[in-house]
């Protein structure tokens, strides 16, 4: 499938080589796992979803280092420094997503049974629909289980750093082309893990260890290529697009699990009505346009040749008929609950200033470490292997806390002991004061994040760099002995300008489908107002610094604000320092 995508193929082979080298008992040429006979299934209890049955294919992956590593990666990064109980891991989240994805599939089978059987027969008139459904269900569950296996130390914080590795950036561009949809580096890694020979070989060995007298659970053929496609929100045929939607879309199983899991672990009383979601979810017949032939190439690579229809005006692009995961007007209250949950989680947890402080410090630390490794001659593949073997406990080890670099050791010590930077300035959408227009213009420039190409910085990155550089220069003017350069001064004083990514609800209008009267349900749903209310009043950019350098950084950043934003009023600085 990856003949036209050399960078993705390179990532697959790198991950495969690492698995074989690091875990020979599981993935090597003389692998011994699974050692004993396998039960066809087991049950695992989860505090959110109760008792779930896992098949032998799922169990062999759960019991392998690919999934076990996730036990040691916190789902919400360093949020436990604010919410002490938020210590849940990517591991239980992955099991939870499998459970929810499976329940959505079962609900679709119940709610849209006729459509489901008809579309399977349309794909292949000679098919055994029962066998097909069982295979699809198993592939979907594996995709859900594997969707996060590409995470590294403290989840999304490290993703920001390894996303800068050239090989992964190029692979992400290839995956965007393959999927016909923008894809990030996190999805690249999970997609590539699913395609490693190591995973296929482990599953084959497991099959050979099954007790032949036990007939429970599906034993028919599955295709890991289909699993990989579902991880990136696609499927091998447009009629099966709803499977990709279950794993990766606006209201996917991932979101349905993490909203309740993160809120519950943090102790926040946020809820939504999953039963109503499941009661109402259906298969919506819609078109998938394909103006750039990406989907045509995708389906060909996946081994299917669905009918690609030519446009009939007013339609402008060739298209495929497809089936999508859809919700009716009846589910609107559930959608509202889910969106409120998401916005509140951003406000309470992900964008909490102390969480941003801890994660920003970790990002600076990891960037320093990457520079250190590069200086020692490591290339992109080496760095990829580094990140894919790290868990949260790496901070305690010789690469970080015990590093020969004083700065890396110091930053690691600070994170481990919650000696976190404090907020020096908070800048938000303060539209009422005298400098409101200047602030608006500044915040506006931070939204312009599209760069022309790999070699050019975006407007947003230029502004951030200029702002930080100015602070560094001013620190040196105030205290010339602190460091030899502005960049070093920023590192010593623990300074950065933090610009969080605001929450978005992509594809809302699409997911809600159409009401019986033909009106798009999204038109009746004031979601834009909610998002605006959130972003206008709860979204801030901030300057952080170590407490012991607060006074110096305050003076330096004040000059940077006056020069770059142009804000000078007392009212502005009163509000910006209030927090």
């Amino acid at each position, binding site marked *: 499938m990856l003949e036209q995508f050399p960078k993705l193929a390179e990532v697959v082979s790198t991950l495969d080589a690492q698995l074989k080298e690091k875990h020979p008992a599981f993935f090597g040429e003389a692998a011994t796992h699974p050692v004993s006979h396998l039960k066809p299934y087991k049950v695992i209890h989860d505090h959110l979803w109760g008792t779930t049955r896992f098949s032998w294919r799922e169990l062999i992956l759960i019991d392998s280092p690919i999934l076990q590593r996730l036990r040691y990666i916190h789902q919400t990064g360093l949020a436990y420094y604010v919410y002490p109980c938020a210590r849940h891991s990517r591991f239980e989240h992955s099991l939870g997503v499998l459970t929810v994805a499976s329940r959505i599939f079962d609900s679709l089978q119940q709610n849209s049974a006729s459509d489901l059987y008809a579309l399977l027969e349309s794909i292949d008139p000679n098919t055994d629909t029962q066998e097909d459904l069982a295979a699809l269900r198993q592939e979907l569950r594996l995709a859900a289980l594997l969707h996060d296996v590409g995470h590294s130390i403290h989840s999304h914080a490290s993703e920001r750093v390894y996303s800068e590795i050239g090989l992964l950036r190029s692979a992400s561009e290839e995956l965007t082309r393959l999927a016909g949809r923008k894809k990030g580096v996190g999805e690249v890694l999970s997609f590539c893990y699913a395609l490693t020979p190591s995973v296929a070989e482990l599953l084959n060995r497991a099959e050979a260890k099954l007790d032949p007298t036990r007939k429970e659970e599906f034993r028919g053929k599955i295709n890991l290529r289909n699993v990989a496609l579902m991880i990136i929100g696609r499927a091998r045929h447009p009629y099966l697009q709803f499977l990709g939607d279950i794993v990766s879309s606006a209201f996917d199983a991932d979101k349905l699990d993490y909203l309740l899991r993160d809120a519950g672990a943090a102790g926040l009383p946020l809820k939504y009505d999953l039963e109503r979601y499941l009661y109402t979810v259906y298969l919506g017949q819609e078109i998938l346009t394909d103006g750039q032939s990406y989907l045509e190439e995708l389906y060909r690579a996946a081994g299917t040749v669905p009918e690609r229809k030519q446009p009939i005006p007013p339609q402008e692009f060739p298209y495929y008929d497809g089936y999508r995961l859809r919700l009716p007007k009846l589910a609107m209250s559930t959608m509202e609950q889910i969106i409120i949950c998401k916005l509140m989680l951003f406000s309470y947890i992900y964008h909490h200033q102390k969480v941003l402080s801890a994660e920003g410090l970790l990002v600076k630390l990891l960037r320093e470490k990457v520079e250190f490794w590069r200086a020692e001659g490591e290339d992109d593949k080496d760095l990829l292997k580094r990140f894919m073997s790290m868990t949260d406990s790496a901070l305690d080890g010789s690469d970080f806390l015990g590093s020969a670099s004083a700065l890396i050791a110091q930053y690691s010590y600070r994170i481990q002991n919650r000696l976190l930077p404090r907020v020096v300035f908070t800048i938000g959408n303060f539209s009422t004061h005298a400098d409101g227009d200047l602030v608006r213009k500044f915040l506006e420039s931070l939204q*312009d994040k599209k760069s022309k190409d790999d070699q050019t910085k975006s407007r947003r990155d230029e502004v951030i760099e200029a702002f930080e550089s100015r602070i560094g220069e001013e620190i040196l003017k105030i205290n010339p002995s602190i460091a030899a350069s502005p960049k070093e001064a920023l590192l010593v004083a623990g300074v950065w300008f933090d610009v969080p990514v605001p929450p978005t609800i992509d594809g809302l209008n699409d997911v809600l489908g159409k009401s019986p009267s033909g009106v798009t349900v999204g038109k009746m749903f004031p979601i834009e107002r909610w998002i605006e209310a959130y972003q206008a009043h709860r979204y801030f950019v901030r300057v952080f610094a170590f407490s012991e350098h607060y006074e110096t950084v305050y003076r330096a950043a004040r000059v940077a604000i006056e020069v770059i934003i142009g804000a000078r009023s007392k009212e502005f600085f009163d509000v910006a320092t209030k927090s």
Partner: protein
Amino acid sequence: MTQQLTLGGFIKQLAVLMQDADIKMSFKDDKPWHMLFYKLRGEFKSQGNTFLQSMQFDWDGPYPKSQDVSDFLQGLHWTGSVSALNPTYERIIVPDEVQKVWKAEGESLGDADRDLLLHGLAIARLEFRSSIAA
């Protein structure tokens, strides 16, 4: 041909031109925005070094969508640079004071950027023709 405009800069300057030309800018229905950029990219992809070369479109539904365009429009909205008209949020307008600032920013644009903007405006006349109910 060298263009200086970023995607965001282009949207801002185009919004000014559209408002001056009395073209109603839809907000909730974002199809005209995406179609405009898809068509503009088709025309200019091989010309000059612009943000258009690296634009990517999602093929997930009835028309191509650029996440970068969606994000920037949303950003303009919540920073208060554009106003969405209540109660339906169907249309956005650029307030007078913002329009004045954006116009001033556009005064230094070169010929290549102006050419690109005029092409954008021509496409906008067609794409935004019927997106908002009267």
